[in-house]
């Protein structure tokens, strides 16, 4: 194997997996002849076959179609919650790192309080308060994830603001907003992209974990986590349902993790993201 390829193997494998999952989610409604909800009781728990590529579930619904729908929900929720967390966390981190002093102290204490809750407990409490549903799930997950970006961006900004280019920008009269967004932001974006990619894997696990417990997007929406959970009712005789949905979650998470690891070698060789990262699952 050529050296360049083997060094970045995880980047390419990860990218391939992620692309496949996204294509699966987006294209499946156009390719699959089945509807997500149509039941076919005589054909319940059918084995994989040319008609049903992944077999059928406890109501004879086509599992391939339902897994694709689950993929769309998982990926949408993961991307939205990470995107909100990235924007909020980055802005707050920039402000804390650049202004320092009391601003920094106050912000970091708030971050500490958020980090004081085990992630899933914080998410569960927020969902219990707001009620289940896709939007509240996204809010709950962003409330858990933003601290990670705030910490990393603050750490990088603290170092960057001491460098001459910032002093030069200040000397020509650039406003703090300009300095933060035009001068400093490009220098923190590398670690943030790496973190966000790894964060997508974490978000998928968190989303399906909450769905597994019944606090995710509610049935009849076929989320992976809920399919896995109700599949356990048939574990003794028909374990297929739980095995397939779990495998879907794992492959997707593996894809984002490999992609993130590969990106890290390219975008964050000094490992800023890794040092400050708190593992969220």
């Amino acid at each position, binding site marked *: 194997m050529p050296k360049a390829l083997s060094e970045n193997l995880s980047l390419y494998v990860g990218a391939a997996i992620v692309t496949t999952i996204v294509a699966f989610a987006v294209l499946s409604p156009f390719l699959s002849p089945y509807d997500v909800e149509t039941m076919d009781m005589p054909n319940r728990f059918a084995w994989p076959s040319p008609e049903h590529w992944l077999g059928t579930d406890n109501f004879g619904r086509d599992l391939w179609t339902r897994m694709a729908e689950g993929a769309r929900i998982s990926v949408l929720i993961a991307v939205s919650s990470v995107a909100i967390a990235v924007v909020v966390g980055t802005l707050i981190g920039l402000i804390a790192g650049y202004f320092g002093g009391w601003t920094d102290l106050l912000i970091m204490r708030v971050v500490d309080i958020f980090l004081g*809750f085990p992630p899933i407990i914080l998410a569960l409490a927020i969902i219990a308060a707001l009620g289940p549903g896709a939007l509240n799930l996204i809010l709950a997950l962003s409330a858990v994830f933003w601290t990670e970006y705030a910490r990393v961006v603050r750490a990088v900004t603290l170092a960057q603001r001491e460098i001459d280019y910032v002093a030069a920008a200040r000397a020509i009269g650039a406003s703090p907003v300009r300095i933060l967004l035009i001068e400093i932001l490009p220098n923190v974006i590398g670690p943030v992209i790496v973190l966000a990619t790894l964060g997508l894997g974490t978000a998928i696990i968190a989303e399906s974990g909450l769905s597994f417990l019944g606090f995710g997007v509610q049935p009849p929406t076929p989320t992976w986590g809920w399919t896995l959970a109700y599949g356990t009712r048939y574990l003794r005789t028909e374990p297929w349902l739980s095995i397939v949905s779990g495998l879907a979650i*794992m492959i997707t998470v593996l894809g984002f993790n490999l992609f993130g690891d590969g990106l890290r070698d390219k975008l964050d060789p000094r490992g800023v993201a890794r040092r400050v990262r708190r593992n969220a699952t």
Partner: protein
Amino acid sequence: MLAYTAGRLALFVPMVVGIVVVTFVIMQLLPGDTAIILLGEDATPQMLAETRAALGLDKPWYVRLGTYFADLARGDLGRSAFLNESVANIIAPRLWATLELALVALLISVVLGMVLGVAAALWRGTLVDTFAMLFAQIGVSMPVFWLGILLMLLLAVNLGWLPAIGRGEPLSSAFGMALAGNPGPLLDSLAHLAMPALTLGLNSAAVISRLVRSAMLETLNQDFIRTAHAKGLLVGRVILVHGLRNALLPIVSVIGLRFGALLGGAVLTENIFGWPGLGQLAVSAMSQRDIPLIQGVVLCFALLFALVNLIVDLAYTVIDPRVRLD
């Protein structure tokens, strides 16, 4: 070192206050009226008003927050509306069950993670390294609830080696019985504990093994390791005493963080294996909207988590006296 300890303790207090306030705020957002939950939908307005007054729900929020702090200071977490028992009494035995599960899982993950990580670093680039890092990548990507169900399917449903759900005697009392000549309960406890603890610990083992590997590789490249070798010290001594001790700081820090992850993972693991701990309680309390109980459980999780982080930070100073507050 004293200054560091004092400084770290001083940070702990506002954090605990903050956690209590955040918990209080979230609970205020919870829909549902405790008085209606207690009395039922057909209660008269007068009965509702009396119950609200008795519970202090008619007071403004800052009075209720003050009362909440005062109650907490006395160890009073309120009463569960559904179970008609004090929240503290419901939580206490479950707290021990969760701690038992999380600590055994932590032990599994530290031992497994250290062994794999050190082995991967020592035999870098060999099959051992590849295998260990493949394990780590899969372990990190494996959802804890799926792993639990696969283990249950294999070890309980198909092979019948281990009980699928439930908990035996608490480990501490089972140990006592074993010492008194009755090993039955201990074996039963361990059999019940094996699958949940392994499920919970494997993910952390993967994270720890990656970190140990990179920390060891970094340390083994340093001059003092070459010096130790040059002095003719035994290879094992160089690796364990000189190498591992200096690689330990990031490892201890990740172990602390992992404990938090384990508490979170316990929510899922306990619900799969019917382990009667805090995580199972959290989910059932939230499904029933038992507000005082949710509040108590969330607070208990957060305080436990904060305490572990405090202990980890203080442990740094013992391992590496160079540590300072930033």
